[in-house]
């Protein structure tokens, strides 16, 4: 292989590495670039002049990627949301298991006795009132888990933009918030007394905010896509 052929091969390979298109398309581009370079050599150009005129491999690849609508490779940042969602799901299951354990423990402790709330089954009443208060937390957690999963999808691809998962997660977050405030609203009276209210509250805030942020991002992407389509007409 001559020096010129080595330079051409190195250049074309460098362009191919930076292309973000399917393999078949890379083969086409490779063939056409090769033809282009050889045609210029036949017209009397030197290899160095040809490669300078074509531009750097990055410039050439960027132009092809832009014209062919190639997608940016999704970054690793989205995996954070996958991990957060998994952690939230595991934690929610853990809390559910603890609740069930507490129920059986309470029932064992108060089996023979006194009706604490006034019904025939005091322990069950305590558990029911406790559980109802937790429904809001579970809904918020459910919304958060779905939002994390959807954020992972959102950051991974620009091609799919379904709103369904975002709407469900935002709905769960909203319903969970309303339920939690309704059942635990009194807790706000003791807000300033202990940091223990603040940290879980920050986590809950993240659980509520993420689904709505994601829904807004998806709507924005949708309206941009519609604008682009109108611009092409």
């Amino acid at each position, binding site marked *: 292989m001559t020096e010129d052929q080595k330079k051409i091969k190195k250049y074309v390979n460098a362009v191919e590495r930076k292309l973000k298109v399917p393999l078949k*398309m890379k083969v*086409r*581009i490779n*063939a*056409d*670039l*090769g*033809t*282009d370079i*050889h*045609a*210029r050599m*036949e017209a009397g150009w030197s290899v160095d002049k040809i490669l300078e005129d*074509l*531009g750097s491999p990055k410039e*050439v*690849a*960027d*132009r*092809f990627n*832009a*014209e*062919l609508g190639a997608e940016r490779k999704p970054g690793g940042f989205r995996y954070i949301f996958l991990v957060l969602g998994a952690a939230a799901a595991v934690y929610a299951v853990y809390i559910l298991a603890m609740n069930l354990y507490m129920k059986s423990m309470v029932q064992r402790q108060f089996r023979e006795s006194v009706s604490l709330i006034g019904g025939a089954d005091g322990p069950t009443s305590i558990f029911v009132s406790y559980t109802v208060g937790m429904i809001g937390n579970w809904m918020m957690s459910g919304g958060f888990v779905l939002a994390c999963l959807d954020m992972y999808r959102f950051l991974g691809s620009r091609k799919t933009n379904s709103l369904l998962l975002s709407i469900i997660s935002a709905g769960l977050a909203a319903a969970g918030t309303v339920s939690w405030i309704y059942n635990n609203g009194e807790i706000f009276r003791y807000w300033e007394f202990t940091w223990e209210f603040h940290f879980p509250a920050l986590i809950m805030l993240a659980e509520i905010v993420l689904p709505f942020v994601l829904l807004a991002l998806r709507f924005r992407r949708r309206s941009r896509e519609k604008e682009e389509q109108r611009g092409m007409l």
Partner: protein
Amino acid sequence: MDNKFAQQLKKGVLDMVVLRLVQEKSTYGYEILQNLEQRGEGFFDLKEGTLYPVLYRLEDSGLIESFWQNGEGRAAPKKYYTITEKGRETYGEYRNLWTHFQSCITKLCGEGDE
């Protein structure tokens, strides 16, 4: 002439112009770029990354097709493009549409406008 309006105009007619050049004779990418530069009066100063996607789109639509042709002597084989029957018909439609469009714009914008 690189403003947005010029870019949009170029993009709008590129398919028609490339079909025309391929219809004239079977040709390859670099030759098309040279023709556009020389006959386009500076309006079509394209790079490979802009032209080849147009060729691929036309090929995928069945308007042109590619083939390899060996060069004379020790020249490397080249990838040529040639127009199909469907491409000829489509070019004819594009040309009629362009003539009509040109006439409408001239009426709307006024022949005497500077």
